[in-house]
């Protein structure tokens, strides 16, 4: 089944005020999320990032403001219609315990009235996509799966009707650290293939760096402190709040974001050590710290320490001025 690619999401002055509260939970939030990109909302607990995300599929009804998906104003579309076209994954997963895994994944196709054969084929395709053997898992019940497996089913269920947009609220937050990293990496690979527009909420900055094409750093009332690529945020934090959220060792983290495929290298292979070009600047730096003078970057060429410093300076200045 060919996959539907992402659509642009445009949020205009989205505001949420709960009754009997003194101030807005989310105040005039405006942001454009480019089609096919994964944007992470990151910020401290209670900053309104989840509320903001849940206003996109109107699980929380905005008090005022506008939501446009693919250029179409969906602020007043019937909520259930809107939601059938938006994948939704939450931290608590929320699988239906009385339905088999196959039935869970088939939820939205069934709501849309797909025929049985098409639904079944799609369910099998998705279970394979998230790494669960359909023959083994289709007829199981959620409680017979581990937390990590349940979350894979959650992702498969959200993708079932091939929505253009995916909303994810700390989807990997409840899994153990090892499973979490594995799920994150798998999801990143999956997203690169599917190119959905994803809004991803987390309070874990590492996760934001790993997954985000762009990151929106939010503070109270969902105020956007900075909106940019991970590299931009690490190399040029816009405010003190962003700086404190980015935390220590921003430079070292930044190195981990720059692929060795993208940098300028010196011609020829004069080095004593070789770093594969699938690595990042961080691995190259580690070789220098380890005592190497010249290193080969795969088969592309080589780097001296001076050349590496130039690369870093150049990366920093392009990130800052873009």
């Amino acid at each position, binding site marked *: 089944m060919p996959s539907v690619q992402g659509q642009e999401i445009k949020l205009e002055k989205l505001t949420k005020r709960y009754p009997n509260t003194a101030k807005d939970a989310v105040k005039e939030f405006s942001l454009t999320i480019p089609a096919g990109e994964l944007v992470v909302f990151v910020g401290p607990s209670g900053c309104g990032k989840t509320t903001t995300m849940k206003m996109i*599929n109107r*699980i929380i009804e905005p008090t005022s403001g506008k939501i446009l998906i693919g250029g179409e104003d969906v602020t007043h579309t019937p*909520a*259930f*219609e*809107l*939601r*059938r*076209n938006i994948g*939704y994954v*939450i931290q*608590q*997963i*929320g*699988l*239906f*315990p*009385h*339905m*088999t895994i196959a039935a869970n994944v088939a*939820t*939205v196709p069934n*709501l849309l009235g797909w025929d049985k054969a098409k639904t079944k084929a799609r369910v099998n395709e998705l279970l394979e996509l998230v790494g669960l053997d359909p023959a083994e898992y289709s*007829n*199981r*019940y*959620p*409680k*017979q799966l581990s937390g990590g497996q349940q979350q894979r089913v959650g992702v498969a*269920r959200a993708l079932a009707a091939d929505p253009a947009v995916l*909303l994810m609220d700390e989807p990997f937050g409840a899994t153990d650290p090892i499973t979490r990293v594995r799920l994150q990496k798998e999801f990143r690979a999956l997203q690169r293939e599917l190119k959905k527009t994803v809004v991803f909420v987390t309070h874990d900055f590492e996760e934001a760096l790993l997954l985000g094409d762009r990151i929106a750093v939010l503070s109270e009332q969902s105020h956007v402190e900075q909106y940019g690529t991970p590299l931009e945020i690490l190399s040029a934090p816009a405010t003190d709040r962003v700086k404190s959220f980015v935390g220590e060792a921003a430079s070292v983290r930044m190195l981990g974001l720059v692929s060795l495929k993208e940098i300028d290298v010196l011609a020829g292979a004069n080095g004593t050590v070789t770093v594969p070009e699938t690595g990042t600047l961080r691995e190259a730096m580690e070789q220098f710290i380890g005592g190497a003078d010249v290193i080969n970057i795969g088969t592309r060429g080589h780097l001296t320490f001076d050349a590496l410093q130039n690369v870093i300076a150049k990366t920093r200045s392009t990130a800052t001025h873009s």
Partner: protein
Amino acid sequence: MSKKLEPQLAAGSVYSQSARLIFKRNRSLLIQPILILVILTLMLTYIHNHKLDIIEKVTINPQFIFKAIEDHVFLSFSAAVIILAIAIPGGILFTRPKMKRFTPIALALANIGQAFPAVGLLILAGINFGFGKPVAIGTFAAFGTLPILRNTIVGLQEIDPFIVESAMGMGMTPRQALRKIELPLAVPVILAGVRTTLILTVGVATLGVFVNGGGLGMLIIPGLKLNRQIVLLTGGMLTIIVAFTMDWLARLAEEFLRPRGI
């Protein structure tokens, strides 16, 4: 999860548990009918070994007893049907967002129905609305509404809110979420309430005799008044047998209707 479970689970649909499997897992389901038979045998032996006098013969005869049982089952079953028709939709209604604030009032009303002494309620109703089966059934219904109403409300409230949120997030309408997700998940708790109500109504139906409603009270009350122990005991034991049988049927329903996976 043990490997042994898988072949059974691969079998498929929600309600496909075989009867054999249910009895195997739940041995007490077999004990109950045996107990019922034992009580019945004891009772029949007792009656058989007793020389009945003229007064006793008026009540201890097949025709009278079967009529009493028939009336009793009719009274309690009709009351239960009315209760189901009121309490389950009521319970659903009082868990919907717009009606939530009335839940305490509904529960208070149902509480009053049950807290009121059943005999008093019955006599009052009889004086006001006349004697006969309809009044008896109405009173028993008022008396037995609470367990099902409360269990329906609790069963629906206890569902993990994130399950309902994800149902809405998938694009189910509130009605679809209720039918496909909330009600099936609340079934075990609701059915437990149904069981309690059934036993309760079978018990209070013995009072039907006070408003000329018939039932096994036709044996118990004369047995007491005329000091005929055998009549009293027969009425009492038959009430127990009817209650146990109803309870057993309800437990079977519980086992078969409980969704798999929870």
